[in-house]
């Protein structure tokens, strides 16, 4: 510990020594309003001009958080999102009453295959070479179809622009044997621009003890590899062909003799073209295969027990009639194949889906912008689904008022329709081929005020959730012994309020505070079963100062999650799950202090004190942070291209 403190002080001192001459203060940017967003309307628009409330997390934000995966970014930037453990320490996401299947995650607009206990594999979404993350809360099925019930999170990757770039970085943590190593190599020659990213991260198994040592939990260690390559070929001016390939490997140490493994193989080809001044076309194929297997240490056998393959084709066409009206039309087709140990005898099922959608984006009277759209989806195993939406914005000087209505739906998955799984001899879980889709009618109202250095946004959401898909105890199943079956249940109403204040001062101080309130209105006197916390808050304040050869950024960030009281289903003792027990989740707050130093615009040193106030839960629950207390991290990265260019420049003088 003492050695680490000395190291941190030395590294800080080195930074101060390098700061020889004062440079001008970093200019205040035009804040957030010149940012481009695409997710809300599927056409590029500035954040200032989109009627759909969108939150953008920039590459700069990601660097301040020093994030490894999307999970690190979301918990520190978006209140109301919580990651916890479900059975067997599988990562599970909750967002204001909605589960992981109700939030659609996209990478450059493409869906991801695979799920575990109703959540995608969040470890796949590493934060190397990310341009920005766009988050649109509320239903968005009129543009994105199934799963976009509660929000769409779209991760936009960078395109290689410089002639060449090489960035190498590592980070070590003081606890859990945590390590992260990454490299990004980019090359731009003539019409070709390629970007290759590699990330490796690992963490050892560790045990956490309750305060009174009455109980303990072994947290499984894991390691993973993420490889991504993106090749852009400029066919002609305004015509691009984009090739994409990715490989992901994850291994979790679940026991001495067995490891859980996950792999993903993805690839795609996309054409983006400007056909004329007013016409744009975007056509893409995406293939994604997600596997899970068990690896046996003694025999070396690696046995596949889950395979989800998705092949999708999509097309999007925009036509601008004038500066005031843009029409968008598109369609998608997908083949979805699933083989899993949760089907009887390891059988497989598949289905085809297709959809068509149209949208009009109309600006008028200088102050108004309205977007309206309609989409029809077809599922070969399930049927049809119609999703409308309308969003409007009224701009008056520094104030923008936005309002929207949209329909969201989540089609039953192959797993939910065909499952037949023996749950450790306790009971069986059965699928249901007659499931309807879960759907929401989503309303939002928002006010935004932007003036000088400040931006304040207040948004209210009201989601009417119907036909929720969940497992229900059926005593007639399993030859009268009972069993769980996927069913549609009545649903619930979810209300939330988000408030965000951002400030950016010319002296280099930036601050943002986001607060989210959530309440569930149950129907017919049913108890509240949502474990989402009523109050959550994220906050970050940082100070940035740049000299000629040295840049210093001190970042203090934290989050607060209030306690939650809710009910869980329980048995009355007759083998019938017909009663409820009250449960409480502990509230907590966690803070992080980072010192990011940049030398010669090429070498970055990041020193982090995580869990600054040494928080440890009294009792580790599924949604507690599995922390052992305060920890430290040291990271370093080198932009080799910038260093070489600097040396060349110096030598040429």
């Amino acid at each position: 510990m003492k050695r680490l403190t000395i190291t941190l002080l030395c590294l800080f001192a080195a930074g101060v020594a390098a700061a020889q001459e004062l440079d001008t203060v970093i200019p205040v940017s035009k804040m957030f309003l010149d940012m481009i967003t695409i997710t809300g309307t599927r056409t590029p628009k500035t954040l200032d001009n989109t009627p759909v409330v969108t939150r953008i997390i920039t590459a700069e934000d990601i660097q301040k958080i020093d994030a490894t995966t999307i999970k690190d970014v979301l918990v520190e930037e978006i209140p109301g999102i919580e990651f916890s453990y479900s059975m067997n320490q599988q990562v599970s996401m909750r967002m204001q009453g909605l589960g992981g299947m109700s939030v659609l995650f996209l990478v450059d607009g493409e869906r991801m295959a695979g799920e575990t206990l109703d959540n995608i594999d969040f470890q796949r979404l590493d934060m190397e070479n990310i341009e920005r993350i766009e988050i649109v809360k509320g239903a968005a099925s009129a543009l994105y179809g199934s799963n976009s019930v509660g929000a769409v999170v779209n991760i936009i990757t960078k395109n290689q622009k410089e002639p060449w770039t090489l960035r190498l970085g590592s980070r070590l943590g003081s606890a859990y044997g945590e390590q992260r190593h990454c490299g990004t190599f980019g090359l731009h020659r003539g019409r070709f621009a390629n970007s290759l990213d590699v990330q490796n991260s690992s963490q050892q198994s560790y045990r956490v003890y309750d305060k009174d040592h009455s109980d303990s939990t072994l947290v499984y260690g894991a390691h993973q590899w993420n490889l991504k390559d993106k090749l852009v070929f400029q066919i002609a001016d305004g015509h691009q062909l984009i090739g994409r390939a990715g490989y992901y490997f994850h291994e979790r140490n679940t026991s001495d003799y067995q490891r859980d493994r996950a792999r993903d193989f993805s690839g795609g080809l996309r054409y983006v073209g400007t056909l004329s001044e007013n016409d744009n076309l975007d056509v893409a194929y995406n293939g994604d295969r997600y596997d899970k297997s068990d690896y046996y240490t003694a025999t070396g056998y690696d046995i596949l027990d889950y395979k989800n393959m998705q092949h999708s084709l999509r097309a999007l066409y925009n036509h601008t009639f004038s500066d005031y009206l843009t029409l968008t039309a598109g369609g998608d087709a997908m083949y979805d194949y699933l083989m899993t140990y949760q089907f009887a005898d390891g059988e497989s099922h598949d289905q085809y889906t297709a959809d068509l959608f149209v949208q009009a984006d109309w600006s008028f009277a200088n102050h108004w912008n309205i977007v309206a759209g309609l989409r029809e989806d077809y599922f070969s195993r399930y049927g049809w689904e119609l999703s409308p939406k309308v969003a409007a914005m009224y701009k008056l000087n520094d104030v923008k008022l936005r309002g929207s209505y949209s329909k969201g739906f989540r089609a039953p998955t192959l797993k939910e329709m065909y499952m037949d799984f023996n749950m450790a001899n306790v009971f069986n879980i059965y699928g249901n081929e007659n499931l309807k889709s879960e759907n929401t009618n989503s309303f939002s109202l928002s006010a935004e005020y932007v003036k000088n250095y400040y931006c304040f946004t207040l948004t209210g959401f009201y989601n009417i959730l119907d036909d929720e898909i969940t497992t229900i105890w059926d005593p007639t199943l399993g030859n009268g012994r009972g069993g769980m079956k996927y069913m549609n249940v009545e649903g619930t109403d979810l209300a939330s309020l988000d408030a965000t204040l951002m400030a950016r001062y010319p002296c280099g101080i930036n601050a943002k505070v986001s607060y989210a309130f959530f309440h569930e209105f149950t129907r017919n006197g049913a108890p509240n079963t949502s474990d989402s916390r009523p109050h959550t808050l994220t906050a970050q304040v940082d100070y940035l100062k740049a000299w000629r050869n040295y840049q210093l950024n001190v970042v203090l960030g934290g989050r607060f999650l209030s306690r939650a009281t809710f009910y869980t289903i329980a048995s009355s003792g007759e083998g019938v799950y017909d009663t409820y027990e009250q449960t409480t989740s502990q509230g907590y707050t966690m803070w992080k202090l980072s010192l990011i130093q940049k030398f010669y615009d090429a070498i970055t040193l990041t020193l982090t004190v995580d869990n600054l106030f040494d928080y440890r839960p009294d009792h580790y629950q599924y949604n507690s942070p599995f922390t052992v207390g305060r920890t430290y991290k040291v990271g370093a990265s080198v932009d080799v291209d910038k260093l070489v260019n600097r040396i060349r420049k110096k030598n040429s003088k």
Partner: protein
Amino acid sequence: MTKTNFITRLKTKINLLLLLSFMMAACDKIYDNDKIEPQPAVGQSYQNINCTDYAKWVYINLHNGDSITLSYEQATLPDAWDIALHRYDVKTNGGKAVETSYGSLDELKAAVDDGTMTLPADELWEPDAEDSIIVDMSHMMEGYLVRSASAINRVLCRWLDVDLSSMPPIYTPSDKVYLLLLRDGTVAAIRFTGIINQQLYSTKGYISFDYCYPLTIKQ
């Protein structure tokens, strides 16, 4: 762009898509599903004995390799059996057991051959003792399990530690070789090798063990 050029480029794109699809399907080759062969054992071995049913015992005759599965309530047992398995519980047919310090049958056999390992003293052998076993898990969610009185051999049951402090439980095998003194005075050496059926989606409750019988150990 001429028509020929356009067709050539279109063909290239289609070929690339086909190549991508083919590469994804070919990924099955990296797994071992089709390559699994029974593990070689020093003496003999049992692979994937189905012990998934909490309500059943699997009775095994080490003399001839036979096995039979019967309900825990079955009053009439097989005429000849040496060892029985119920999930991870073990009982013997009037036998006794000792845990050795050896981690493999090879090591044990070498130690027996060179005289390092001799027959343990009488007082070290532990017979079966009255205990209870779980025979019905279906009420777990209601907070209770159905148990039934049964004799088990506590030494042999040490082959697997089941830590219930986390869910799912953590299973830690001892990896030790156990000596079993049968009712007829002959000796067997047993080493349990697994609890999972790798060919059946890693279902737990499938027990594998290697054994060496008969084993002659000097007094």
